[in-house]
């Protein structure tokens, strides 16, 4: 087991190194650079060369990559095009986004487990068909469309909640909790649709297995079946889904945050792309990519630990 964890972690480190090369070189090698685009069309070639030298852009790519990568390892994410340290720019934003994703995930786990097992135990019946269809529709629709529909209904139609998440500068969104409701619900619906589909399928498969059928014939009640036969099979899958969705939520948050103008990393990332602020884009890409890779490995390990045949090697 320890060896397995070690191997997988080494794999993550390797993939992260690869990702960092892709992120750095991909953004850097393609035409255009932030210095030139910021100076505009009126800049003279000497001006551009001077600004590029100041930003270190005249050094070879490999050297700049090593500089950047060793900075990453020390927790130094470089300097944004605005002159502020990237870590300073990011700190509040990361906390706000983590709050959004954390709240969505905290609601997602119990809700998806309840809905998924409920539908899975009724596979093929009416309640199941309603849940399945609803989640299929939600999975297909982009999250910013769902968010737009929520704005139409709850902010404009009913007037219950603000359409824009205005947070006074220097305070946490927790100071104005009503601005969190629609963004959290948008994210929740996005993740819920996927999680319910997977948990429902796992429940349906588990409840078809021989020992569950046997227990049912022996007169075990529905609650008993769920606790002793179905849940042990479903929970490892559910945990994996929650982990993957949790990170997926951070990606989806980019769009949802833009709908509501929520001050998280999503809006920051979009702004950085529009202004060509490469250090911010590269730092956020590495943070989000690393979170995704780690979550995938942890999810994989959870399934292995939670599944006796995989753990012991017996079949």
């Amino acid at each position, binding site marked *: 087991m320890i060896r397995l964890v070690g191997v997988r972690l080494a794999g993550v480190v390797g*993939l992260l190194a*690869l990702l960092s090369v892709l992120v750095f070189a991909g953004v850097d090698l393609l035409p255009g650079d932030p210095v030139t685009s910021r100076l505009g069309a009126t800049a003279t070639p000497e001006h551009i060369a001077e600004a590029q030298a100041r930003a270190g852009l005249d050094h070879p790519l490999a050297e700049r990559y090593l500089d950047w990568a060793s900075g990453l390892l020390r927790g130094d994410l470089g300097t944004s095009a605005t002159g502020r340290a990237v870590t300073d720019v990011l700190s509040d934003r990361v906390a706000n986004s983590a709050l959004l994703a954390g709240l969505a995930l905290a609601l997602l786990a119990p809700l998806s487990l309840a809905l998924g097992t409920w539908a899975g135990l009724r596979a093929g019946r009416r309640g199941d068909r309603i849940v399945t269809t609803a989640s299929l529709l939600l999975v297909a629709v982009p999250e*910013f*469309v769902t968010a737009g529909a929520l*704005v139409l209904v709850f*902010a404009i139609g009913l007037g219950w909640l603000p359409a824009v998440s205005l947070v006074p500068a220097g305070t946490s969104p927790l100071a104005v909790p009503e601005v969190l409701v629609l963004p959290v619900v948008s994210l929740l619906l996005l993740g819920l649709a996927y999680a319910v589909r997977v948990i429902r399928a796992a429940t349906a498969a588990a409840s078809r297995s021989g020992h569950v059928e046997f227990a049912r014939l022996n007169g075990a009640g529905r609650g008993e079946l769920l606790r002793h036969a179905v849940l042990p099979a479903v929970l490892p899958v559910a945990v994996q889904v929650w982990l993957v969705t949790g990170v997926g939520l951070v990606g989806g948050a980019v769009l949802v945050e833009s709908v509501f103008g929520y001050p998280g990393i999503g809006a920051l*990332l979009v702004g950085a792309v529009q202004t060509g602020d490469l250090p911010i884009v590269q730092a956020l890409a590495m943070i989000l990519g690393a979170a*995704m890779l780690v979550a995938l490995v942890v999810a994989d390990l959870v399934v292995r630990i939670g599944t006796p045949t995989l753990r012991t090697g017996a079949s």
Partner: protein
Amino acid sequence: MRPAAVALVALLVLVIVGPVLAPYSPTEPVGPPYALPGEFGLLGTDQLGRDVLSRVLAGGQPVVLTGLLGALAGSVAGAAVGLIAAVRGVTGAFLMRPLDAVAAVPPVLVLLLVLTAVPGRSGIVLAVALAGAPLVARVTAAAAAPVVSRAHVEAAIARGEGMAWVLGREVLPLVAGPLVADAGVRFVGAVYLVTAAGFLGLGAGAADWGQLIVEALPGAVLQPAALAAPVLLVALLAVSVNLVADDVVRRSRTVLA
């Protein structure tokens, strides 16, 4: 599944003839800003007084065309890598590893990264292709793996046929079914990314549905129809494409089994 297919065909017809049907230019002001549906057009006007109906009718083509182009490019590139990976073990692994790293990055992030470097329509196509190709490569490699060890493939290799010939004539026809089915799923992802690019204000300036949504959000209290129309259309397109693609995938599995 039939209602989904009917809805999709109706939508595609609307997208194709939409620009012709539009009563006004999508860029000219025709009335006061935020006019409600009625006097100034069936769906009212937007924040600059432009006709919302005309913009909605014109806004489908950039989404569908860019999406098709990106999905096609991603499928072709992914299929090529997947086929090579299936035949050449070591080279294959060498090709697939970087794709795994790309596959781990959320598609929206791929979109933003590519658009940093290549702004505009070509950047969106490239992003859609990049986000889709790793998954296509996986599907192709998995579908081709049992095929490459078959006798007719080994015979062709023994005859001394070139790599391209073997892959194109002996392997590709046998994995085309799942590839076509998968291309449908790629198009779902492409529609999502193209509308997301428009929504993030990173579209190429054409009035696509994603851009209509983001432009309508600030004034949605004054003119809800300008938000409701593109929201409904994107939702309808996404759902119908998804259902039809789902159906095609399921059918191709039955054929394979």
